[in-house]
């Protein structure tokens, strides 16, 4: 142990001495270590949670695995480091993690003043409304005069007030401090509407509703919470790999490449698919990784649609609709620049 720590300290000293001029220092350290250190949350259903065998699963976890697959050709060469909300940015700044995929909202100050780069948006979240089906409400615009369960002092409460004011509606707030009690109050029928981030609404419905099918989440999303992977400033090559590992999952979905058919797709005549899967070489070299990088990601992790379905979508207990997270070709916001 001591020896390993000392070796780590020495290696870190050497890397530090090499200076910031060397562009790929984070990537070099990751390769030398043979493992990607990925900061995830300490447990958010569908995004990052440990299963009964202690294995991490979730949509955030799969982004980490895709990056590992791109760098090492092996999605399992990643160590997940649970981080709390207070601790996550320090962990990234201090080098305790290489990459942070932790339901972190993409904002200007975080992207600039904290010294980070957001490399994309792997989940478009935003505040939504959940109601009992018995109300017969199909849209948030019909909620005039409703009682709304909400936590005090959060942006959620402010967004709620703004939304009702701009739509010239009134509501009666039921303000409760603790989230568990807010949920209990809603399912006990003390209020008509429960509002929080949409992913939280789906998780609540799956976990706490007496019968999940009795409740619907209304289609209106009233705030922007784009969640994405974050890296430190200073290693643009590593940031590129993280960015394109995620785009590759989107591109694969767009071209219909899945973990099941990826081997057949290698024989495809479509020049775009040939480029993506490295049959026509060049993309991997440009990115500084193996030419089969996308093949490895799709084979071992899957395309974005598969991942979404497995972790938070229809194939999971959360049953979150694709909504804004559908591909741009299907009316959503997920859009990847071309791999060429």
């Amino acid at each position, binding site marked *: 142990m001591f020896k390993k720590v000392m070796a780590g300290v020495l290696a870190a*000293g050497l*890397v530090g001495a090499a200076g910031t001029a060397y562009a790929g220092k984070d990537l070099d350290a990751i390769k030398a270590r043979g493992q990607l250190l990925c900061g995830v949350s300490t447990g958010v259903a569908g995004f990052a949670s440990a*299963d*009964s065998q202690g*294995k991490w699963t979730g949509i955030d976890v799969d982004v980490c695995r895709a990056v590992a697959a791109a760098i090492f050709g092996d999605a399992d060469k990643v160590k997940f*480091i649970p981080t709390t909300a*207070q601790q996550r940015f320090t962990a990234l700044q201090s080098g305790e993690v290489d990459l942070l995929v932790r339901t972190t909202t993409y904002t200007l100050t975080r992207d600039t003043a904290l010294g980070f780069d957001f490399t994309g948006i792997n989940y478009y979240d935003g505040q939504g409304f959940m109601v009992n089906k018995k109300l017969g409400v199909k849209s948030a615009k019909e909620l005039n005069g409703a009682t709304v369960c909400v936590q005090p002092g959060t942006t959620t409460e402010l967004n709620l007030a703004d939304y009702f004011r701009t739509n010239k509606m009134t509501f009666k707030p039921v303000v409760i401090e603790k989230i568990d009690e807010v949920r209990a109050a809603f399912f006990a029928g003390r209020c008509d509407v429960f509002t929080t981030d949409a992913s939280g609404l789906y998780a609540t419905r799956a976990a706490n509703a*007496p019968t999940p099918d009795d409740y619907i989440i209304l289609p209106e999303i009233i705030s922007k919470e784009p969640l994405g992977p974050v890296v430190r400033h200073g290693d643009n090559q590593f940031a590129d790999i993280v960015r394109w590992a995620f785009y590759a999952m989107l591109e694969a979905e767009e071209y219909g490449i899945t973990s099941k058919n990826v081997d057949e797709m290698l024989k495809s005549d479509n020049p775009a698919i040939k480029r993506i899967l490295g049959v026509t070489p060049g993309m991997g070299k440009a990115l500084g990784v193996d030419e089969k990088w996308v093949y490895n990601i799709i084979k071992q992790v899957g395309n974005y649609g598969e991942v979404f379905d497995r972790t938070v979508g229809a194939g*999971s207990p959360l049953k979150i609709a694709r909504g804004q997270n559908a591909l741009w070709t299907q009316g959503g916001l997920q859009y990847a620049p071309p791999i060429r």
Partner: protein
Amino acid sequence: MTDAMPVGDRKPLPPPVDETGVVGWARKNLFSSWGNGITTIVLIAAVVWILNWFLEWALFTANFTATTGSECRGGGACWALIREKFRYIFFGSFPYQQHWRPLFAVITMLAMLVLSADRRMWNWRLLVIWGVGSFITFLLMFGQIHIPLSLILFVALAGGVIGLTLRSALAPSSERMAYYALIGIGVVGLALRIAGVLPKWSIAIAPLSYVETSLWGGLPVTLILATYGLAFAFPYGILLALGRRSNLPLIKGLCVGFIELIRGVPLISLLIMASVMLPLFLPSGTTIDKFLRAQVAVILFAGAYIAEVIRGGLQSLPKGQFEAADAMGLNYPQKTLLIILPQALRVVIPPLINTFIGFFKDTSLVLIIGIFDFLNTANQALVDPNWAGFPGEVYLFAAFVYFIFCFSMSRYSKYLEFELNKGTRR
């Protein structure tokens, strides 16, 4: 003429039936007046009602066999969740096939604690028990241990110095020569090692695959943090307490300053410092193991509290004890170790155990820096979307395990108080 029975031989009548046995006890204690009678009946009804409700939920309608969370829903308690998750709750993310390692580590630690609870072991045996026990525990948890040469040399040096101070006037000359030899080996070896003459060499004991601390979780983490936190905090606290009573202003000032600083802030802020601030002060790329950081924070924190408890014991000793020790020609370490501390520590056993129990539970605050102790792996079991929504069952289970540990500690404290105060009881 009647045979008058002598007064002393008259047999006392037995007390009336309703004064003895269960009926008598109930009359006397439960139904002595109308008010008490009604209170008793209301309380019994309440207890029966709650017990009935609890048993209905926890046993009769409970689900023990479901394979997913949704099957569990609607009925009573979902104990199937515990059945599914207990290995994760106990051992966290430790590689699943190797769960026997943390299991045996926990057993070793418990055996170590139980053995050192026996007063007959309170001598050199204690060192052996802890040395062997700790070695086995960490070998099982890490899988590989590298003992560097410099550590061996340092231990030799420390052993020599400690032996010499404690036994200076008492030991035969051959023993003293051995201590000098140890110190010599230590100093020369370390000097050569630093100069680079001796190679960077270490004993590698590696029978198992290496598992890093970030994968540890559950009960072993709670036990290691609490056991070693307190094991190190105890001597450290004694030193602080002695330092606080020292006549040297610098030492006294440092000890008072440290104790007051630590006692003035909550443990959570210390952990946040260790996890959020400390890494920013270190050069970039350098990280200290998260688990080690938490362990050090717990030791510092517990040390300050234990110091104040022990200071109470020191102050309760009459001055005559100190003067008698001085009169016998004992030096300061001998006086402290042989005369003062044994008496002082005996006095403070109840508050010490109280501190221990508190810290056993406080270790769950390490969640704040993303370490998964027992309570936090239990929390994590709630997040799994397949099994979400049964907090009651999980928290009851966690509470039950904590209770077993804390209750046995408090029973032990009671036994110890009894044993150690035999001399003063009449």
